[in-house]
């Protein structure tokens, strides 16, 4: 059976060169980077080399990179670490409704502990309006966190404009760049952000290695206390093999970026074009300001999990933001915040493409997907429409 992996927003396979780079650190080079003998100092040197490579990917200084265990940890660290470090200056933080749970739930934690949180509305494309950010800033505001690229709808946010507004009001800006780092060019100086989260497994590195960029001179309260690792900002013995893998993956991502973007962008456009031939399928997210490898849709009258299962039976792997695919049985808050009716959000399906996908993969999907849709619609009581349910369709 053919296999088409279209779930790169979930995770990516390891690049073979990354694997090779990691192997010595899983075998003989097992030293603790804090040890003073050579086995330890070699591990320390290797980590510092990785830090340089990761920094170079986003035009940061190596000492501005703090390695963490995951993108979620980096996001928790940024939001909680800055809110706490600046609590004498104010108790208000701003996040958007397009954020990942690791940001939203960190904000809720702060809310329970006396902070005030503004959850910014997003438009039908999932975009945060910088003007809205401006109006939300108060004297108490210490931090704004807005996602850079949405893994659910692919939309890329106007972070530069948001950062500019924040700077004028002396508010710190964090962006969750987990979906974008290593996938599109990122320059922290140009973006003007103070903090930025990224994770290795989104650009063919291993799971278990991620990083938070913390602008030089910015004070942040650690999430994990202990030893002096990461300059005392993140304790715990380093996950050396994963960090080495992240460094190699960052180096490869930088070298191959334009090729990868062109490749997945072309496949994405092929897919979006092909989907237009199926009735009542709507693109979600911004049509132009979107991740190169991201194509997300709502398919009317059917449900996402059922689509995923039938596609998986054909060797096609994708994702959905439907209520039935989430353990919490709630449709994606991002889709709902974009104003997509809940019944339509049930038909959410997300394809995220990567370097190993081919145009044959897209042809195969475009051959199989209409059959899946038709089969489920034949089963659906809404095959002839929503009837009196009055579902307003206002997608792209």
């Amino acid at each position, binding site marked *: 059976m053919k296999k088409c992996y279209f779930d790169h927003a979930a995770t990516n396979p390891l690049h073979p060169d990354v694997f090779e780079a990691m192997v010595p650190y899983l075998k003989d080079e097992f030293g603790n980077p804090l040890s003073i003998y050579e086995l330890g100092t070699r591990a320390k040197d290797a980590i510092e080399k990785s830090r340089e490579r990761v920094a170079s990917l986003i035009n940061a200084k190596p000492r501005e990179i703090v390695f963490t265990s995951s993108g979620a940890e980096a996001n928790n660290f940024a939001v909680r670490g800055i809110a706490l470090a600046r609590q004498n200056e104010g108790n208000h933080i701003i996040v958007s409704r397009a954020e990942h749970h690791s940001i939203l739930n960190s904000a809720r934690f702060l809310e329970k502990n006396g902070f005030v949180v503004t959850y910014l509305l997003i438009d039908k494309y999932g975009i945060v309006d910088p003007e809205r950010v401006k109006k939300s800033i108060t004297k108490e505001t210490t931090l704004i966190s807005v996602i850079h690229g949405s893994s659910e709808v692919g939309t890329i946010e106007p972070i530069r404009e948001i950062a500019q507004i924040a700077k004028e009001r002396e508010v710190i800006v964090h962006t969750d760049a987990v979906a974008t780092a290593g996938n599109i060019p990122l320059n922290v100086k140009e973006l003007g952000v103070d903090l930025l989260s990224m994770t290795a497994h989104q650009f063919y590195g291993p799971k278990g290695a991620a990083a938070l960029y913390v602008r030089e001179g910015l004070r942040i309260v650690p999430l994990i206390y202990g030893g002096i690792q990461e300059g005392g900002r993140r304790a715990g013995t380093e996950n050396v093999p994963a960090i080495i893998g992240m460094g190699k993956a960052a180096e490869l991502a930088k070298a191959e970026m334009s090729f990868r973007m062109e490749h997945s962008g072309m496949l994405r456009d092929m897919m979006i074009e092909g989907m237009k031939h199926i009735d009542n399928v709507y693109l979600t997210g911004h049509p132009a300001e979107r991740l190169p490898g991201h194509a997300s849709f709502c398919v009317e009258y059917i449900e*996402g*999990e*059922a689509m995923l299962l039938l596609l998986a039976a054909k060797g096609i792997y994708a994702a959905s933001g439907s209520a*039935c695919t989430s353990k919490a049985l709630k449709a994606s808050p991002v889709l709902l915040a974009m104003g997509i009716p*809940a019944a339509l959000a*049930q038909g959410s399906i997300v394809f995220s493409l990567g370097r190993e996908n081919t145009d044959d993969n897209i042809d195969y999907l475009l051959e199989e997907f209409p059959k899946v849709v038709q089969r489920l619609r034949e*089963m*659906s009581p*809404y095959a002839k429409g929503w009837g009196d349910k009055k579902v307003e369709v206002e997608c792209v």
Partner: protein
Amino acid sequence: MQKAGEIRRWRWNVYSEKVMDHFMHPRNIGEIPDADGIGMEGNPVCGDVMKIYIKVKDDRIVDAKFQTFGCGAAIAVSSMVTEIVKSKTLDEALNISKATIANELDGLPPEKMHCSNLGADALKNAIEDYKSRHAQ
């Protein structure tokens, strides 16, 4: 070892083979144009919707079909319900509980148990519909 009355264990994230069989090859899809009872349950806004059609003869269900908007579990439940009600008396059919359906499917993940609930309720609604049509 499964104790009597206990709902079978599931593997995290994985449907039983029986659920997958009923999802991949659903029995009794479609409408019955001259159905004696029709029952609907659920709401597309929060998840699944099941519509069950029954044909009744001498207080016995002789045919059943379904239309379902929903996940794999919802479709498998609909297929299973329409299978097990056939040739049951109306009273027997009314006694089909969500646990019966889940067990017939070799268990459902905990967050999918409400699907078997929907199946049992849609069936009850279809029987009530039949009864109200034949009350006079």
